[in-house]
């Protein structure tokens, strides 16, 4: 009894200062629309869970990792061979990074197919797409950190691509590399981006994204809205807490099981230490989420008319990304009606392109 009274007193103390009761009330009244597509809502939460795992395992890796060309590889080797459960921490960090990008893609496409980007959720969409871009930036910068052969040459190819952009390309590539070639300065910079710049930006954007989701609530698909409007009923809702939250927790546990299995059965390989003087190994390719653009650029001829093939490809990707980011603005017409068929068609085409070209890039 005394214990309960103490807990209440502490809770009251915090409540007076932080207004926790308002948050409790908000959570108690928060609901999630219940329909056949509700399971797709879990992917946002799973992505968040994997991001948290990234932060935790990243902090543990930081205890031993040393970002210099002479020590980076050896420090990762030390982590996976000598540090107690170091192999598990490193494997979970690497696998969860990849799974996080996969679930972020699934979350993004589910938002598109459920038309959740519509007014007033344009900013939620924009912050989400930028977060996915940051996640890929995490992947690109983190890939170099073990300083192994594959990561070294993949970074060389990636920064070479950046250099081929007219005007800003060469200074951008120099900025990324910290010089003319990938070397010690690049490793230090990428480490800085990976553990300071990107986490800072990602945390701010994540807070904004989550606040927008809370403020605007969870969107229902137009088809479901129309069906209930025709029937004159309201869309059934599921209480967020505990019903949705416990289901989300189950999804998190399932993700943890998948991660643990991958880490134990297929530990992330370390490969051979990078040798800048060696020739690039055959079949060098980037991480799977960069494979589609990589393979597209590989297919392009050296010149298309008067323009360089690689430059044309990069311009094409820039247009594609801009078009995708501005989806909420062209996804509805001037009268405010949704262009659901157009958006679905574009999304299917993009998905088909990404899957096909990623597979071709992997197997060819």
């Amino acid at each position, binding site marked *: 009894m005394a214990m309960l009274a103490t807990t209440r007193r502490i809770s009251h103390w915090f409540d007076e200062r932080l207004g926790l009761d308002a948050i409790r009330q908000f959570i108690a009244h928060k609901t999630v629309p219940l329909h056949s597509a509700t399971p797709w809502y879990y992917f946002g939460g799973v992505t968040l869970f994997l991001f948290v795992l990234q932060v935790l395992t990243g902090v543990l890796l930081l205890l031993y990792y040393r970002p210099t060309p002479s020590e980076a590889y050896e420090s990762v080797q030390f982590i996976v061979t000598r540090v107690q459960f170091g192999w598990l921490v490193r494997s979970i960090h690497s696998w969860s990074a990849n799974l996080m990008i996969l679930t972020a893609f699934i979350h993004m496409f589910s938002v598109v197919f459920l038309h959740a980007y519509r007014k007033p959720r344009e900013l939620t969409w924009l912050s989400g797409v930028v977060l996915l871009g940051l996640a890929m930036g995490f992947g690109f910068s983190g890939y170099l950190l073990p300083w192994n052969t594959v990561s070294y040459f993949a970074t060389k190819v990636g920064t070479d691509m950046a250099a081929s952009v007219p005007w800003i390309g060469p200074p951008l590539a120099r900025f990324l590399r910290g010089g003319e070639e990938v070397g010690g300065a690049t490793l230090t910079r990428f480490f800085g981006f990976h553990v300071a710049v990107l986490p800072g930006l990602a945390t701010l954007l994540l807070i904004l994204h989550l606040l927008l989701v809370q403020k605007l609530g969870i969107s229902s698909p137009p088809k479901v809205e129309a069906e209930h409007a025709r029937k004159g009923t309201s869309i059934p809702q599921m209480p967020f807490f505990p019903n949705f939250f416990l289901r989300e927790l189950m999804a998190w*546990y399932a993700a943890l099981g998948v991660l643990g299995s991958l880490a134990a059965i297929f530990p992330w390989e370390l490969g051979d230490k990078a040798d800048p003087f060696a020739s690039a190994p055959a079949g060098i390719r980037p991480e799977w989420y960069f494979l589609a653009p990589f393979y597209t650029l590989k297919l392009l001829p050296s010149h298309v008319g008067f323009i360089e093939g690689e430059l044309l490809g990069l311009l094409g990707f820039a247009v594609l990304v801009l078009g995708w980011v501005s989806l909420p603005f062209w996804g509805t017409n001037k009268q405010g009606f949704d262009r659901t068929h157009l958006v679905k068609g574009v999304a299917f085409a993009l998905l088909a392109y990404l899957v096909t070209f990623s597979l071709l890039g992997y197997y060819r």
Partner: protein
Amino acid sequence: MTRLGSYWIGVFLLGLLTPLLLEAKDSCVECHSALDGNLMTPTQAFSADVHQHRGFGCADCHGGDSTLDDPDGAMSPKRGFLGKIKRTEVPKLCARCHSDANLIHKFRPQQRVDQYAQYQTSVHGKRIASGDASAANCVDCHSVHDIREVKDSRSPVHPLRLPETCARCHADSTHMAKYKLPTNQFEDYRKSVHWEALAQRGDLSAPSCASCHGNHGATPPQVSSVAAVCGTCHALVEDLYSKSPHQPVFAGMGLAGCVVCHGNHAVSRPSDALLAGPDAVCSQCHEESSTGGKAAAEMAQGIGGLQAALKRSDDLLGVAKRSGMEVSEAFLRLQEGREALIKGRVAVHNFQVAFVNKPVSEGLAIASETYRAGEEAMNERRFRRIGLAFSLLTIAVTIAGLWMAVRSIESKSERTKPSGS
């Protein structure tokens, strides 16, 4: 067009034609190009010749004056015309320039100029000097009128083509009949490990005819010098052999060192089977029960044992690596074990068991150490999988518990929901 314009066009055309007008005249090529057969062929071949590229012409070898149009004047003996060079005179003619360091070093500062001196010591050179015109001279190997640099892969003396060039004469039974020489060397060489390295792997440093017999000073190695010849590449083996008990015995018996076990032109890939078993060469001289036979068996056993132990470690580490275990350090150590195996095989050439056992013991220690590393990696793999099984079980139970909690909450709220809502 004004007069001034015509003047400048004239000056321009003259400027273009001047180099053509100033180019040295070569009446040899002009006349012989218009002839047929053997008198015309050299003019075509000469365009590919290294001498032509360096600015030499027909007259530099054949004499005469190539600036004269009149054939009698151009090919006058008074102007040093030699005509067709006698085969026995060819080496001397080539040596006029190739033994002249001042001339040759203008083109290649590091080019040797002792080819003729060496040639005179060769069997080919001695026979030419004795008047045997069918013995090989410079042009038989280097070609004539289309001589290319040795590094040019089209040259008949390029390392990849040299064995075939030597075989043109040495595999010709008619040509070799009068010298009473065998003609199977090229056929044997093509079965050898040296040919495999040269022709199949394209290793230009692999030995061909000239590597053992010399090139300009070509001579068959004598029985006593075979080990020294092989030792130019296999230096360590030669050193071990020279200190071995076999060396004085073979020398006393007039046996040609390395050739006794490995053969000469058909040097096969060395294998541990040469020591013991049905293909053993030791057993050709040593009976199994003799001291030598027992020593050979012991050396074979040691080397075979080390090879098997290293393979066992390699297999186990391979399984661990494929399971994602980090065993790169053990693989590096295993490489040292393989080096010990190589040292053991080389040590055989000393023909003393104790000498072979030293690297073999070192290798066995490494094999056992790396096998332990492999076992530890496999234990770690087992530990991870058991840990995973427990974790998955815990996760499954937790998910089931959460699902039951959700069902319970939802059925409770269904029951408490006011009727009609």
